[in-house]
């Protein structure tokens, strides 16, 4: 009798879902394929780091977009405005702290950049709240109107940014200690790229921890799977959605700061320019999937840098080609979100 009880218990337990790790392999595969094409190992290391840094920044921006879509079927064509706003806020904040950013010390530089990031996130989050209320809420469940109205929000937002900061490009110089490169053997890796990768990883880990280990995260994941069911269990999915939207906007603001520092100058059109990349990333990842978005962002970052080095003329096509290949393999993206 006692011997049979473990088997009964085992059959009662939920069948374990085999984690799908295959897409994870794409990143090393892509990097290894690029190695013989690039030829020089040190160049390859530089490019790979540049790609990872770019991918991390794109992930920070795109994660909110994909979650918002997953939760409420809302695709925000105005997401780029938060990026631009974050970057412009950073120029204003950092301009007041030139004696801290000018110092050749990582501590003082961070003391200047971190407040800039926090202010950018707070303001873009607040703007996100207003954006949700004014622009998105009246058109729930009407995809056509939603596309148009968020596009309209993007136009007005960009024009308002021009009203406040002017239409011209504003330089956003890196703090002194972020400049320059570290040498690994012959490979030069820009310091700022390492910093961007670290920040991206921190955001990714925190976000994954929240999604996987907290009640809020459980509700969000459940909402993405089946929002009606979550509502019928007594949770207000609207509040959850607003929370996710605001967080997404704040993360886009953070991404904007990082992207602005990466480019070292900001223009009012920068958000609109990134939009296409964001869409490619969330389509590749599977609309609504954060893990897929992470892999998609890294793939796009890497392939943009490799293609930019090997064949600059086709750099943008490389992303679309990547999307086509991924969709041929998995038509709903790397990690399809099972619903609908």
């Amino acid at each position: 009798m006692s011997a049979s009880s473990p088997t009964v218990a085992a059959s009662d337990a939920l069948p374990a879902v085999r984690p799908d790790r295959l897409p994870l392999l794409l990143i090393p595969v892509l990097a290894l394929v690029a190695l013989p094409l690039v030829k020089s190992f040190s160049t390859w290391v530089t490019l790979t780091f540049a790609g990872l840094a770019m991918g991390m920044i794109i992930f920070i921006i795109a994660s909110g977009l994909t979650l918002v879509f997953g939760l409420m079927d809302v695709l925000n064509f105005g997401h780029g405005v938060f990026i631009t706003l974050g970057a412009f806020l950073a120029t204003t904040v950092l301009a007041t702290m030139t004696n801290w950013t000018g110092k050749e010390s990582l501590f003082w530089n961070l003391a200047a950049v971190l407040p800039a990031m926090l202010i950018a996130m707070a303001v873009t989050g607040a703007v996100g709240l207003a954006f949700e209320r004014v622009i998105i809420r009246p058109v729930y469940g009407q995809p056509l109107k939603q596309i148009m109205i968020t596009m309209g929000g993007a136009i007005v937002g960009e024009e308002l940014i021009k009203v406040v900061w002017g239409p011209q490009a504003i330089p956003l110089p890196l703090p002194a200690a972020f400049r320059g490169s570290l040498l690994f053997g012959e490979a030069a890796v820009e310091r700022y790229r390492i910093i961007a990768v670290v920040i991206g990883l921190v955001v990714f880990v925190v976000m994954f921890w929240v999604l996987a280990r907290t009640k809020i995260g459980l509700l969000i994941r459940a909402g993405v799977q089946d929002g009606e069911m979550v509502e019928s269990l007594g949770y207000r999915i609207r509040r959850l959605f607003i929370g996710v939207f605001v967080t997404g906007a704040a993360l886009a603001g953070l991404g904007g700061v990082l992207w602005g520092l990466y480019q070292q100058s900001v223009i009012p059109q920068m958000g609109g320019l990134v939009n296409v990349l964001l869409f490619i990333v969330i389509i590749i990842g599977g609309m609504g999937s954060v893990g897929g978005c992470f892999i998609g962002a890294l793939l796009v970052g890497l392939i943009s840098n490799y293609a930019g080095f090997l064949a600059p003329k086709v750099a943008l096509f490389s992303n679309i080609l990547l999307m086509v290949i991924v969709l041929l393999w998995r038509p709903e993206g790397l990690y399809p979100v099972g619903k609908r």
Partner: protein
Amino acid sequence: MLRRLLSGDLPRSRVLALVLVVIGLGLLLTPFVFPGAKALNVAAKICTFVVLVASFDLLLGYTGIISFAHTMFFGIGAYGVAIAITRLGPTWPAVAVGVGAALATSLALSLVIGLFSLRVKALYYAMITLAVATAFQTLASQLSDFTGGEDGLSFKVPAMLSPGFSLSSSPFLGVSLDGRLISYYLLLAVSAVLFLLMLRIVNSPFGRVLQAIRENAFRAEALGYRTVLYRTASNVISAGFATLAGALLALWLRYNGPDTSLSFEIMINILLMVVIGGMGTLYGAVLGATLFIVTENYLQDLMKLASHGLAGVPLLRDLVNPDRWLLWLGLLFILSVYRFPFGIVGKLRLKARKAT
């Protein structure tokens, strides 16, 4: 006669009819009433954009598909003419070759995009077309041997249309009968024909099916219409008209570059024109395009005055800065989507219906 010409789709509102007549007469008489090159350029731009916006309305307003690749077809038309004339010389056959090649390219491309991606939901289609259009724009500016890159192509037009050509030495009603005038009237006539042709299409049984799909795709499918095929057909037809509009623009400007016909800004502008004018009514395209282009060219002068008047008030001064005209149209656009989903035309027709 008139009813037949308008395919039975009369304005159905006295105010609307009046506005349309005023716009029509204005365009017809521009060279005689409003002197100067600027007025003529504005009028010509209105003509081409009426065709372009109407073709976009065929897709967005009548079929309920939102595409961000519409300027791509507009650009193909413009580049077709520009490249053919640059290569083959400024002759009519060259123009025909350019238009023909551009049309073939556009139709094939729109067919492929349509068949591949019109099965998916509206959001995906919007994203995919956005990506394709961006890639195409990059392609056009990269292939500089062929397209002139960022600088674009300047070219001569057939002798009859060039400014040097003169029909008679004595001016008629104070206007010299040169190639520009002929170009303008040619443009106006072709635009009018294309517009009436589109009016014919949307008021045909085929057009009714498109509207049925817009209202409820599932029901249309249940009634036995293959919605994918109808959507694709709508996509191809609208791409064809956009291509022709592009060819007209290139012939008028005698120049084409990425910024004049391909840029994403134009895409946004035609979206604004359709929505403000009125989706699902081709007359909305006329109103929207006219309002927008006149605003673009003349509101700025007005705003300059306001901006001078408010020079002492910091934020307000920047808000009415002439460069910020798009801000106000953007707000009008958002308001239109909320308040009058069928735009100005829909509002006018509703009023007329209530009155009776």
